[in-house]
């Protein structure tokens, strides 16, 4: 039997041909529960940003399906994850985010208490229990695995899972040179979408929808916006990425190169408020004052971005290999549900999770992050709130356009006229790669 055959035997609606995806994978309850039990219980997943827990004792509750864990900073260089249930009668020990002050985690029910290292510090009423039931080794908070990368904390409920770094590669190697670990939150918002968590994120696993979904980005020249201008790479463990091909950048208006680039940058800045921010716009527009040389404007722009960063005290790292800068403007997907889209000293970041127990609902978060000037004090990021997908006051133009397609896709799945998704081998390999890795988890 081939690997694909083995998976088919145990996983319902398994991928048998990499370019066809059964629609049931996005709404079938059995499939959803299999994901809960076999994917989310054994995969590395981004739990919070490090800047959310800057001080010892700070915590964030991370939830996925029916699990809740407390991610706690237990020392200046140490973070732990605890399953969120009192060792007595299961009360969740903390909700949301905050700080365990005085270094103590306290159950609100009977006042049982733990040091932030997970050891019990006060067991009220212990004399009323059989001695063995309240022996110290019985009462430690139960830990899950925790590791960090790229300014984020990741958790894994599987003790035997491969190390985080191995699971994420080659993304750290591709993204570390761009300084993602130095980025901090500029804004952070969430949307509840009536769509499966995979359907929501697949909108970002390819870039050729831009021509139709975001017509403004073609500067009125859709015919020049070629579907094949991006190169797509699939990697081990479900990861993938894509970025502009060498020479693949559409030249919308060769005679007006400078104005075209300024205009497309402005559309990104105003339509997203991420990746290209006000300070970058300022730099890009100031290039109008430089003498124009045909064909080198892109290089001038990169140079100006670095010069501005140096002058403004922004620690934007210059990659050892300048070729790494081709990844500015690319999309990097870290299986199962995390995206980083770096550009200049900024990035747009996505995370998609099931929303409660509904296979057709997801909680989708967006962060706009940026490398702040070194002189700026570290502050905890503020969550900007959950908004409806059609809230034009909350969302810039580009996400509004993406959200509207996602919910229509989810509804379309149920149509009598639809059976399975067909994928483009040249453009949608990342989607197929994700589903195949998912099946590896589901068949274990």
């Amino acid at each position, binding site marked *: 039997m081939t690997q694909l055959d083995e998976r088919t035997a145990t996983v319902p609606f398994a991928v048998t041909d990499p370019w066809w995806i059964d629609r049931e994978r996005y709404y079938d309850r059995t499939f959803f529960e299999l994901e809960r039990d076999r994917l989310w219980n054994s995969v590395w997943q981004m739990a919070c940003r490090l800047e959310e827990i800057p001080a010892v004792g700070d915590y964030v509750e991370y939830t996925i399906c029916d699990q809740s864990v407390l991610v706690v900073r237990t020392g200046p260089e140490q973070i732990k994850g605890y399953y969120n249930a009192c060792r007595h009668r299961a009360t969740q020990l*903390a909700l949301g985010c*905050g*700080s*365990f*002050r*005085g270094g*103590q*985690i*306290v159950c*609100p029910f009977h*006042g049982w*208490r733990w040091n932030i290292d997970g050891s019990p510090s006060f067991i009220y009423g212990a004399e009323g229990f059989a001695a063995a039931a309240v022996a110290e080794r019985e009462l430690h908070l139960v830990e899950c695995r925790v590791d960090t990368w790229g300014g984020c904390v990741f958790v894994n409920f599987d003790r035997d899972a491969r190390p985080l770094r191995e699971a994420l590669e080659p993304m750290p190697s591709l993204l570390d040179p761009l300084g993602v670990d130095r980025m901090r939150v500029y804004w952070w918002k969430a949307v509840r979408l009536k769509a499966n968590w995979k359907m929501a994120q697949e909108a970002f696993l390819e870039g050729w929808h831009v021509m139709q979904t975001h017509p403004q980005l073609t500067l009125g020249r859709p015919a020049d916006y070629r579907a094949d201008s991006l190169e797509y790479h699939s990697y081990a463990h479900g990861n993938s990425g894509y970025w502009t091909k060498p020479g693949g950048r559409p030249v919308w208006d060769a005679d007006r190169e400078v104005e075209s680039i300024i205009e497309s940058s402005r559309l990104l800045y105003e339509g997203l408020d991420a990746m290209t921010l006000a300070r970058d716009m300022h730099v890009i527009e100031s290039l109008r004052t430089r003498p124009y040389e045909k064909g080198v404007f892109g290089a001038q722009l990169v140079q100006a971005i670095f010069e501005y960063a140096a002058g403004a005290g922004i620690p934007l790292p210059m990659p050892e290999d300048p070729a790494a800068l081709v990844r500015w403007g690319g999309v990097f997907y870290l299986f199962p549900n995390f995206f980083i889209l770096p550009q200049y000293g900024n990035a747009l970041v996505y995370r998609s999770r099931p929303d409660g127990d509904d296979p057709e609902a997801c909680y989708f978060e967006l962060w706009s992050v940026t490398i702040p000037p070194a002189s700026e004090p570290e502050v905890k990021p503020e969550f900007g709130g959950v908004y409806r997908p059609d809230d034009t006051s909350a969302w810039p133009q580009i996400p509004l356009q993406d959200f509207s397609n996602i919910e229509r896709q989810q509804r379309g799945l149920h149509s009598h006229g639809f059976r399975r998704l067909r994928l483009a081998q040249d453009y949608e390999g990342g989607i197929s790669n994700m589903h195949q890795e998912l099946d590896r988890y589901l068949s274990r």
Partner: protein
Amino acid sequence: MSRVRVEPLGADIEVEAGEALLDAAWRLGYDWPTTCWGQADCMLCRVEVIAGAELVEPAGDDERRALARKLPRSERGPGPRLACQLYVTGDGVVVHKEGVRPLSPG
């Protein structure tokens, strides 16, 4: 840094900017009544502000909710504040709190 006097112990506690009175007391080694450890839940850390009330920041949502939910009506009113939620803006605040002790060495 702002000084808060805690009676009847007579202790002067230096509170840093952005630090709650309870955190400052812990930092300086005082034992202060609590069973929830700063989660605005147990009400045991509450104090009576007896002087310098104008130098105390108003109660925030967490504290107001906790006071309304957990304190009998007869004990509410302008006086009681939670030391774990109490931030001061200058020297001269005096609070009354029974049960505050310097931690015994060891």
